[in-house]
């Protein structure tokens, strides 16, 4: 089942958990043996602490949810001092999702994380839709993404995965710009910008009015974007967006994803990530695939 994403990031199987949906892994150890996963991507972290947006931050939608958490976190230094020692010896890959509001913040944060021996990769978050300067400004133009990825690349020597925003006209162009600037892989999709209104109260349901849509409802959009990006770049593509079971995961791999992330589904079934890893195996056996990598791009059009 081993998946080699390049530049030192080797996964035991294609299943990772998406940033912001799995805490620091600790919240899920009652339900999942982390050794059953290819990796976990911990909560979006910024150089400086952030309080995030006011409550309410969540609205349920048909087959999904909107959130506007706004990157609440205690900063890179707190992660290094307090959280890293607790999670560094997990028997799985621990990736850090790094976000920022200025180029300098991204670079400084990446430099600090580069020194952490047990973190084999950064997932660079240039696509958070919920804060005014949450990186999405970088992630929605080719020049913006080239700039942030090339600057981070200069100081970060391990695997650099870039998480792409779906809130763009042509995601393939953005992916190509990330690749040209030195990304080792791209992951997609981050949440789709959306909105919910309480008609009775004539008020928005979220404190900052708009938020990011995730859950089963975004899967067809995510699948299409993964398929487009796979055709446009040579680096590995990590697929996510609404994956709720092993069959969904297989669909992303058939579309060309080398690995996948489970996000919002962790909220409904905290044990789902390990079940998906097992289910991909079962699919491979049932269809005569020797290994999970044989699934990548095996779509017959």
């Amino acid at each position, binding site marked *: 089942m081993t998946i080699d994403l390049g530049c030192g990031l080797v996964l035991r199987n294609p299943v990772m958990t998406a940033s*912001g*949906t*799995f*805490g620091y892994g600790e*919240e*899920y150890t*009652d*339900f999942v043996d982390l050794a059953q996963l290819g990796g976990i991507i911990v*909560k979006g972290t910024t150089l400086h602490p952030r*309080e*995030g947006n*006011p*409550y*309410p*931050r*969540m*609205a*349920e*939608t*048909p*087959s*999904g*949810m909107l*959130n506007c*958490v706004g990157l*609440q976190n205690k900063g890179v230094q707190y992660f290094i001092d307090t959280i890293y020692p607790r999670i560094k010896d997990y028997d799985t890959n621990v990736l850090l999702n790094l976000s920022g509001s200025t180029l300098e913040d991204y670079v400084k944060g990446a430099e600090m994380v580069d020194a952490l021996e047990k973190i084999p990769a950064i997932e660079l978050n240039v696509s958070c839709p919920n804060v005014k300067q949450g990186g999405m400004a970088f992630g929605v133009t080719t020049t913006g993404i080239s700039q942030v990825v090339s600057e981070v690349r200069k100081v970060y020597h391990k695997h650099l995965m870039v998480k792409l925003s779906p809130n763009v006209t042509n995601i393939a162009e953005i992916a190509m710009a990330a690749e040209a600037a030195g990304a080792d892989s791209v992951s997609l999709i981050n949440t789709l910008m959306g909105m919910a209104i309480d008609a009775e109260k004539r008020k928005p349901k979220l404190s900052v009015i708009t938020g990011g849509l995730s*859950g*089963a409802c975004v899967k067809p959009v995510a699948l299409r974007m993964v398929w487009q990006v796979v055709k446009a770049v040579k680096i590995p593509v990590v697929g996510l967006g609404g994956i709720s079971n092993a069959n969904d995961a297989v669909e992303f791999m058939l579309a060309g994803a080398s690995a996948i992330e489970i996000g*919002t589904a*962790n*909220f*409904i*079934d*905290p*044990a789902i990530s390990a079940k998906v890893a097992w289910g991909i195996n079962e699919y491979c056996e049932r269809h005569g695939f020797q290994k999970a990598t044989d699934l990548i791009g095996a779509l017959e059009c």
Partner: protein
Amino acid sequence: MKQIIDFKLVEKQDFGRSVLLRLRTERDLPEILPGQFVQVRVDGSPSTYLRRPISIHDVDFQNHEITLLVQQIGEGTRHLAAAEKDDIINIILPLGNGFSLPEKGEKCLLVGGGIGIAPLYYFAKVLNEKGIRPTLLLGGKTETDLLRLTDYQQLGETFVTTEDGSLGEKGFVTMHSIWQQQSFDKIYVCGPKPMMKSVAKLAAEKDVRCEVSLENLMACGLGACLCCVEDTVDGHVCVCKEGPVFNTRRLKW
């Protein structure tokens, strides 16, 4: 340890807007403290995507049973209330932190409003087991909101308010004459936020320790998504993980 358990619905009592669900599993229940909550998966309702956080009304460890009192608020709880005997209901438990137990000899008041009375039943039961007889003050809009009143009365002296005056004293719980007549060492509250804030204010004036159980909108219930935060002196904290019970001194109310 938190567990995901398939429970079977063994008894349902219909109280109109609310239902009581008694649920049984073959498995031994983990330790469950008064004030902790569960996350219930709602199956077969297309518009309900997330689990529903529900307080724990009662626990019977010997028979591996938990009881939930569910008020029909929206589509998810309406669907849950429509469950039938022998239906399987998938539940994650126990979640969050419970009420802190009073010292022996301390006089405590349990204040419940509306469906917020639900977790106070199990709490009062555990207090009785520990030799502490609490006083209860329960409020509702009208008489029929005060579910299982005679069962509560078994567990301690019980006072009642209704907004329409159909039972007990007319008005809100904060207007009850007991506040003038008696004093307490600890006050525990569960109910609508404005009611909890009013009781917290009363408690602060009397310099009495007060704990409230919050019910902010949640997604994961595990402290991962950071959606259910409450503003505290320590910044935004997850109600699901650091609560749902908080000492009011920690809250920025």
